[in-house]
């Protein structure tokens, strides 16, 4: 059995003749990168794997930088995505509630939806339930949490992942975090989405609660927020709050929905701004497996920022984006998919595939992946 270098790799510094400069290799198949010295990178490029150290070989295979020689990579990626989309299509259930309804109407709706979920759960094929709640008033949030708590206890939580996504007002988290800490549910991932952040002081209180205080939520927390002003207009208070967050965890700038006339330059400028202000960020694209799941899985507390003004509608769009990718794979054979533009694209593993269905062209974020990576690697070297 022989091996080859995967074609889904982005290198930096390949033309450099300096043996002192490290070379970074990024695999779009796993959205992971590795720092190599000049000699190892050359061995990798020449596919001279026998002379690479064993431990490193293991890592390179794990990252899928090295793959079997007879593997049809395009087919592998498409098949994997196809199975991923099939699994997630059948197993997810999105429940949306908005703020305009009365308390009684919400209560009845929760019960009604509960029956549908129970029905699906009984068929043993339900894995993920998303609750998307748009409530901006804290007293209603507490009521809501109690209702969810009461009615989800009847389910086998081991089998089903529950994502409770709450759109909140800046500062409101401080009022009900105590309530959360006594909830008996332990397998729920809460996603707090702060919209319309104009009051930086109130927002900073929430940041302190989530990131700095020792609160036992007993659950995983994802924290998303939308800053509705272009980064060039961010005040010192905004920058200071973001620095506090990035001191604890990475910020994941959300590039997915940014559309600018000068889109090739935008991400780089934004990243340079973040870096200059010592706001740590993660540039790696979310792998398609996570797009299907809707929400990143690898961190207990994560945060996401964007300066795009779409706000909460974008968050809903984010949750729904998996549907768009799934559509690419529905009712189409692998043979047909192979004819698509996406099939030849080096970014297919991280993107999942959009073209030919609803989107006229690739999402903007795809164009800038290489720029982002190269900038990131350049900064690593410095």
């Amino acid at each position: 059995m022989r091996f080859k270098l995967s074609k889904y790799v982005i290198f930096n510094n390949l033309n450099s003749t300096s043996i002192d400069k490290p070379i970074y290799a990024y695999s779009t198949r796993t959205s992971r990168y590795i720092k190599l010295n000049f000699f190892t990178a050359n061995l990798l490029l020449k596919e001279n794997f026998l002379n690479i150290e064993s431990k490193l070989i293991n890592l390179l295979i794990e990252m899928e930088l090295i793959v079997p020689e007879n593997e049809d990579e395009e087919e592998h990626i498409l098949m994997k995505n196809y199975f991923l989309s099939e699994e997630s299509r059948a197993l997810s259930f999105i429940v949306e509630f908005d703020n305009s309804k009365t308390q009684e109407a919400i209560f009845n709706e929760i019960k009604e939806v509960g029956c549908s979920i129970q029905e699906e759960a009984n068929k043993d094929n339900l894995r993920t339930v998303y609750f998307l709640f748009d409530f901006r008033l804290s007293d209603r949030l507490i009521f809501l949490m109690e209702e969810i708590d009461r009615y989800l206890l009847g389910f086998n939580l081991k089998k089903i992942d529950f994502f409770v996504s709450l759109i909140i007002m800046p500062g409101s988290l401080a009022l009900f975090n105590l309530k959360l800490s006594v909830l008996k549910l332990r397998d729920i991932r809460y996603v707090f989405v702060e919209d319309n952040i104009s009051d930086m002081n109130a927002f900073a209180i929430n940041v302190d609660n989530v990131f700095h205080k020792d609160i036992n939520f007993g659950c995983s927390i994802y924290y998303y927020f939308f800053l509705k002003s272009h980064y060039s207009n961010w005040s010192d208070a905004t920058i200071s709050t973001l620095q506090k967050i990035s001191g604890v965890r990475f910020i994941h700038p959300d590039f997915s929905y940014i559309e600018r006339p000068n889109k090739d330059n935008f991400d780089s400028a934004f990243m340079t701004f973040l870096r200059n202000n010592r706001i740590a960020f993660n540039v790696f694209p979310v792998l398609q497996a996570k797009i299907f799941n809707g929400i990143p899985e690898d961190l207990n507390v994560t945060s996401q920022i964007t300066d795009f003004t779409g706000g909460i509608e974008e968050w809903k769009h984010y949750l729904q984006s998996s549907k768009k990718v799934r559509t690419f794979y529905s009712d189409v054979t692998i043979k047909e998919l192979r004819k698509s533009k996406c099939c030849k694209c080096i970014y297919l593993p991280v993107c999942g595939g959009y073209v030919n269905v609803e989107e006229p062209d690739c999402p903007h974020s795809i164009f800038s992946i290489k720029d982002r990576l190269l900038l990131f690697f350049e900064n690593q070297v410095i």
Partner: protein
Amino acid sequence: MIQNSGKQLIETEYYTGLYAKMIDRLLNKHEKIQFCYFSNISTDGLMFARKGAIALSGFYFSKIDSCISSLADGMLFKVSNTVYLPAKSYYFYKQGQTTNAEQLLSDAIVNDIHFVRLGFPVMGFHLIQQYHNLIRIYLRYQRYSEALGICSSIMCFLLSGEVDSEGLLNELRPIYQTDEYYFSRHAMLSQIIYETAICFIKQIKGKEIIYKMMYQLLLPIFNNLEYYEIVNDDDLAMIKWIKIIELFFLGCDADFQAAAKIFLSGHAIMNTSQSNILAFFLELSLT
């Protein structure tokens, strides 16, 4: 919690190191690359099976099946099977195909024996892990007598080195009192005791039946405890815990209740399973 994670990390690194040394000795460079690939694909298949993504898991195993079966019955085949067989077994288990799952675990056990015979004690503990996987299957399908039979044999070996001369565990004799034995026995023993006991608590209804099952589980421990050589604080805490539970079965209710309450107030944060099981016995004793 943090202490446990740190300890688990040390254990994992310890095993990974020993396992890597074994592979270094047994495989040439070209074979090692192939093994890395088989190992990674098996791990991916296992990971997706754990998440319940069965079709995707099947996709990964289908990639590896043909490669593995095309290998001659050589060392690469055997080493690859140490990873592939348990992972594929879990894939079957997850789908409720217990016969296939059991068969692959039996194959994995026979495969591991080969490496123990070659002088790699670390594989003796890999073998015990496969027995534990069998126990998990039996427990899930309420095949309690088979589960208890294996539990008893493994616990006797870990406590005293005693093994049934005709059984497969007989192959474990050479690993008794090796460095690997002293490093691993507490983790193995506690894993089997706690997991099985918790499973009984969750699955079995009725005071008398659960009393009987727990007694059958713990009797081999009570009988062999005197041979267990205490070498660290973990051993000490476990022995203390077992002796308190022994009081319950000896009918010393007042002594048991007093000791259990002290233990629970002092050790509750250290090990959740220990605390939960003890709290269960305490409740049983009070009702």
